[in-house]
């Protein structure tokens, strides 16, 4: 059941990639709508798949990197659908579809074996910690897509992508908004993690590689927000920093897990 649903999610995203690519060159609005609809469908199918897994396990799918990757994609698709009222763009749809496709493909290579929760993970804080992380990282993922769009639009200088891309100022504002959401929730990730660490290990901060890299991510986005406010770093410079920030998010999530050992060995 779960495997079948995941397969359907893959197919939807794949077709959405193809259709939104076509929509880039054929600026008719209806084609783009189909690509959007497919991603929404993928979101509902993924919701069903994660629900099935939760039901079978008797817990939320928050316990290892495989589960987290799928929930991460779920969060990106959710925020993407919610941002529809502010932004219609084939390129945005394409970038989101491509990113989620890469993440899902990568996630599928990880061990998916469903194990019962280790004693250290049996806590209400797990839900808050992972739940806030999903919102935070998904918002950063969208800011990453918006930053790429900004750079493309700026490079094109209105020549090649006239009908498809929203104005630069709008892209810049939405990117800023996404980073504010991501940064606020990242702060909650660090706070809930610290309170939980105090309950489970008796140490609210221990410079474990995962938490250190989460802090580095936080410092980068803090620098982003300050540059924007005081030094008027908008547009291109801000977009580059937003891209760097998300690459560090991915390193925190995957790089640290594969390259470094620490308390977060289960994720």
């Amino acid at each position, binding site marked *: 059941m779960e495997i079948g649903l995941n397969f359907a999610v893959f197919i939807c995203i794949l077709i959405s990639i193809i259709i939104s690519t076509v929509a880039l060159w054929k600026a008719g609005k209806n084609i783009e709508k189909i690509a959007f609809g497919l991603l929404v469908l993928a979101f509902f199918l993924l919701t069903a798949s994660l629900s099935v897994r939760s039901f079978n396990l008797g817990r939320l799918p928050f316990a290892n990197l495989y589960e987290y990757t799928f929930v991460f994609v779920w969060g990106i698709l959710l925020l993407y659908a919610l941002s529809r009222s502010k932004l219609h763009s084939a390129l945005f749809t394409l970038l989101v579809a491509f990113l989620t496709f890469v993440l899902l493909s990568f996630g599928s290579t990880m061990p998916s074996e469903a194990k019962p929760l*280790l004693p250290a993970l*049996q806590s209400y804080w797990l839900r808050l910690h992972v739940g806030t992380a999903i919102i935070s990282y998904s918002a950063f993922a969208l800011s990453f897509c918006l930053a790429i769009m900004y750079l493309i639009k700026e490079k094109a200088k209105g020549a090649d992508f006239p009908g498809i891309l929203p104005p630069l100022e709008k892209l810049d504002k939405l990117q800023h908004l996404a980073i504010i959401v991501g940064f606020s929730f990242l702060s909650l990730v660090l706070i809930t993690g610290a309170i939980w660490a*105090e309950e489970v290990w008796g140490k*609210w901060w221990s410079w474990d590689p995962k938490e250190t890299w989460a*802090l*580095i991510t936080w410092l980068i986005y803090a620098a982003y927000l300050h540059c924007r406010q005081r030094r008027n770093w908008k547009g291109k410079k801000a977009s580059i920093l937003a891209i760097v920030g998300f690459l560090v998010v991915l390193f925190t999530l995957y790089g640290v897990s594969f390259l470094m050992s620490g308390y977060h060995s289960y994720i």
Partner: protein
Amino acid sequence: MIPLIRRWRIIFSSMRMAFRLLIVLGIAASLGTFIPQGFPADFYLEHYGYLLGKLLLMLSFDHLYSSWWFLGLEGLLGFNIVFCSLQRLRTINSIWETGSILLHLSIPVIFLGGVISAFLGIRADIKIAVGETKDLTGLGFPGYVMQLEDFRIEYYDTQEPKQYVSTVVLENASGERLAGEIKVNHPLKHKELKIYQHSYGWQVSGMVKYEDLSQPFQMEEGGELALNAQEGLVLKLIFIPDFDKQTAALRSLSSFPHNPRLACALIQDTELLDMKFAAPGEQVILGEHQVLFVAYRYYSGLIVKSDPGLLWIFCGFGLMVLGFLLRYAVPQCLMGGRKLWK
């Protein structure tokens, strides 16, 4: 001198400095995840070569996060935030700005809590066997006595561990008694004291006889007993809860004590001279020594701590959340139509 001090104050309380500190702290923190922390000095000299190793040690890269310069950078950031916020206090004209200042001030509050923890916090690891009583006075908790009544492991159907539970009785100097369970994620709290479940293992006891001498032992499984220091002779004791008679291997079939044995290995320097398996109550002969295995029981590894800085740290967290709410979650309609983002 005053203009110089003022100039420095202006430099260190500037936004430019804040930005630099954020970036430098980020880079420094990342270095600590690539360079292994807390190893003995020889490790760095061997691993990085003599010159680079010496340099790393000189700059305290082996304990980067508690090095003088890293703490100094954190201090500078705290100082910078306090001064920036004080300057902004004069020009507050909205709830959003109040939120922003609370958000910023929460960071020095958390730092302050960290400093209080570092100076006044106490933390001790203890290992206590089932039935044993330990006085915690020597660990920095005067008058406290703890007894471990029971230790058990709860399992899932798949035999994977679900929870580790220590049942303890804690008594303080004034004779107050507190009985309770300590589990992973559920520390026992009593006034300023918190006790955490950390590890567990087996403790074995028995007797070693050599000629007319007999030496009792009571130790953690896996430990070594020196028999003759001059000849480099030691007895290594490994507890096997579920012994496999067919293979007679050191590996246990399960973690349950269905068929307990004590593997007694006589070792000289690094050479294994002899090894025998003793059941409880059984005596085995190894060279000129006789080893009697009497009993086994669980011990529980607990962390006992008190941390007066924690209250500050948690207040800092609260302040940060409040700051975020006021800064970003107060809707525009309550602010007389002003724009939230410039």
